[in-house]
């Protein structure tokens, strides 16, 4: 029961962050909200692994956290230099 309440609260927080990701005035607001949304996705995947009692989901959460960080840095670098490195 507590698990369902916690998952609902995290889903509500994801909705609130998504509003900021859609209407953020500057570009950095979009990136910040997308990063925070990814962190909440990691939390939800880990909670699901506890709910279903399946260890496999924790690996997915781990990979998702790393991909989220790389995506944030890559977007920032792309908008600063207009490329992702020497091609």
């Amino acid at each position, binding site marked *: 029961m*507590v698990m369902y309440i916690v998952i609902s609260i995290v889903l509500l*927080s994801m909705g*609130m962050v998504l509003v900021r990701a859609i209407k953020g*005035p*500057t570009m950095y607001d979009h990136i910040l909200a997308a990063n925070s949304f990814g962190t909440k996705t990691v*939390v939800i995947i880990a909670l699901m692994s506890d709910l279903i009692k399946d260890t496999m989901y924790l690996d997915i959460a*781990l990979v998702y956290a*790393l991909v*989220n960080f790389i995506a944030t*840095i890559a977007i920032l670098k792309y908008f600063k230099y207009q490329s992702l490195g020497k091609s």
Partner: protein
Amino acid sequence: METSDIIGNIFLIAGAFFIFTGAAGILRMPDFFSRLHPAGIGDALGLPLAMIGVMIHAGPGLITIKIAILVVFAMVTSATACHALAKAALISGVKPTGYISKNVDIKENQAFDKDKKAEI
């Protein structure tokens, strides 16, 4: 309900509270630089507390190690991403609300004084 379940539920509810607080701050704060602060709260307090709750529910084993690695990665990467975002925004010229540049202020004051003297 066992004792470990109750303690894990307490940690889960604390984590959910901090995640909700961070999301409300991201939605309601007036400024980009002040929005970085609740984002850091959600990443650095909400996620580790919720993960500790899951860890206590699962008991000792491989799950504990995986969640510990996840928490360490999340705390390191969230701080780094926040710093990179703040520095990129500062370099690109995002201004906080209520920010008054000193140079502009002095020039405006001088112009205001000249006009005042001319009027007098």
